[in-house]
């Protein structure tokens, strides 16, 4: 359902919800933009641009205890973590980040329902904000989502200028949320609907063309051992910047922090770029950094496709912008696209030759 809401009314809603739920929004934290819990509407940065760190940490924290343990004479006593049950609202999340949650849901409900993650997901209403001015490194359109993507958000706001927001309610959660604030959501005129459509079309028309995903997937299926990987991964220094800023990278490590006879088990983010990620007692299957670099590309564009039928890259551009040595997943995929074109032409040529 589409409605119209003014910035002032939006502020009123935020002021009202901060009293009853945990509200998260982009704020300025020591010079960088991060998603943090806010106490007042004034803290929010509405201006364009994504947060430095993706929103995944609100659902899948960078470090969290899973349980506490204590060794006693009678055995080991385990105290599990209580599931989160506070109501939470996320405001100003960009469509790529919101869609990334949809992507992560697949893996966290696949072979095991990750209770910690799902409890947080269930309790959170997501209010997205369309990108009317994408940043230089954005390429969401290439991964087949758009700066106005709806999947992942419960409500999607679009800034129409003049202090008015187009608001589209997408899920039942979104409807339930707006129920309380019905009076602020005004009826929308057909002109304003058209204005939003026009805005979306203008923004999207300038953005990069979609990757030929099927071709790329089929090339990846056949070319795990292609010499191009060594070239593409050259220069990667093996830090975790790309994976830790990525809104869909979800690998984690479990570690015990022990103090005498008690302690806690924690879940921490981990990265396939690290050499110890695959290091086992007897073997290291990924000896060189380019193999780890390949893993990240493969995971996003092949393995995730195999399992869940969509990409695990949403084109937020964080890894491109902040890689210490200028490694660029967008250009890697374009390079593979070139390879696929060459191979296709060769195939055609071979057929003609017959």
């Amino acid at each position, binding site marked *: 359902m589409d409605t119209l809401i003014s910035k002032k009314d939006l502020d009123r809603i935020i002021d009202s919800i901060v009293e009853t739920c945990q509200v998260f929004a982009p704020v300025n934290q020591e010079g960088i933009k991060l998603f943090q819990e806010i106490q007042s509407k004034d803290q929010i940065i509405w201006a364009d641009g994504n947060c430095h760190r993706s929103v995944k940490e609100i659902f899948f924290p*960078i470090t969290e205890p899973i349980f506490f343990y204590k060794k006693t004479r009678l055995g080991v006593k385990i105290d599990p973590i209580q599931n989160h049950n506070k109501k939470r609202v996320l405001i100003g999340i960009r469509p790529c980040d919101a869609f990334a949650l949809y992507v992560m849901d697949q893996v966290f409900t696949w072979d095991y329902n990750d209770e910690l993650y799902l409890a947080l997901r269930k309790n959170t209403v997501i209010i997205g904000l369309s990108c009317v001015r994408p940043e230089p490194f954005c390429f969401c359109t290439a991964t087949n989502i758009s700066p106005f993507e709806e999947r992942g958000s419960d409500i999607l706001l679009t800034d129409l200028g003049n202090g008015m927001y187009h608001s589209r309610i997408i899920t039942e959660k979104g409807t339930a949320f707006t129920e309380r604030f019905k009076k602020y959501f005004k009826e929308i005129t057909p002109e304003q609907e058209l204005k939003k459509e026009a805005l979306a079309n203008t923004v999207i028309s300038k953005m990069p063309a979609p990757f030929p995903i099927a071709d790329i997937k089929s090339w990846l299926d056949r070319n795990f051992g292609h010499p191009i990987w060594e070239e593409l991964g050259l220069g990667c220094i093996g830090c975790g910047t790309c994976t830790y800023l990525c809104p869909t990278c979800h690998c984690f490590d479990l570690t015990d922090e022990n103090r005498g006879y008690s302690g806690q088990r924690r879940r921490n983010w981990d990265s396939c770029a690290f050499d110890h990620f695959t290091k086992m007692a007897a073997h290291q299957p990924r000896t060189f950094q380019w193999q780890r670099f390949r893993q990240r590309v493969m995971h996003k564009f092949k393995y995730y496709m195999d399992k869940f039928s969509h990409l695990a890259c949403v084109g937020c551009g964080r890894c491109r912008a902040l890689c210490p040595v200028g490694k660029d997943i967008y250009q890697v995929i374009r390079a593979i696209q070139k390879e696929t074109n060459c191979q296709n032409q060769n195939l055609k040529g071979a057929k003609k030759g017959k």
Partner: protein
Amino acid sequence: MRARIKVIRMNEIKAKLKALLKNAELDLVIGYGERKIPTSDGSEITGICPLFVTRESGIDGLVWNRHCVHNLVTYLTKKEYKDYKKIAIFVKPCDLKAIYVLCQENQIDRQRLLIIGLACNGMIREKMGISTKELAGKCITCRESSEGAVARCQKEHTDLMIESTPEGSIPSSSEKKALTLEDLEKMSGADRWAFWQKQFQKCLRCYACRAVCPLCYCEQCVCDMSQPQWIEKSPHLKGNFLFHLVRAFHLTGRCIGCGECERVCPMGLPLTLLNQKMIKEVKDLYDYESGKDPEQAPVLSQFRVDDDESFIK
């Protein structure tokens, strides 16, 4: 190979490198190359990234300009580049110091290297992948140059040299003055503690600082160990404090102040402040500056009979 010829222009260097590659006197060139970055609005911006050349045809891609901030020395100790017998490497004066320390610590064989020294008077800062007009953070704290001064590589330790500084005007210092070591030292202990708490709270433990550091070459880092776990692997405040302080200690008397750790930190932590403090302590205590001379013994692993022993009671 170590002819120590002074060469001024990039073209001459390129010709020389081509000849060496052709005659198989050289296996790899690590330098800077341009990359075109397509942006979301269809335009293109130009960036600089490390360039690895093994064939003659690749040499023309080498560039030297104000965006060549990376310290390429970090690659010399990485596994992927250890098999090359002869490596040519482009180094700025700050980067060259890292080679000195690696030589002192027997991590690289100087005979394997063809060092191409560059003259530098400041690189440009990049913000979120886009170049600004400001001076890079690492150049503000550069020990060699006050603003505008030209830092040069020591001739006797380079094989080839480009004596001219990159074209274009020297970038200006940031409008917003960054916190200096003096500011930090003036703070009360409590304030300083609060400052670092705020900073380390942001740390992701992506280990970009460690990965990019030319002197963090340990194959097994103490921070990755889990049996026993000396340093909490969890990126909570305590674990982050431990990691950064242990890293600062391990770099004491070794850090050459190239500032790469601060440049690459995706969370913008002012990591060079820690290292600068240790550089200062070492200078005050032992009158030693790391990376000054490849022949000198590393300060914390040498013993002298006249060392101060008054602290032993």
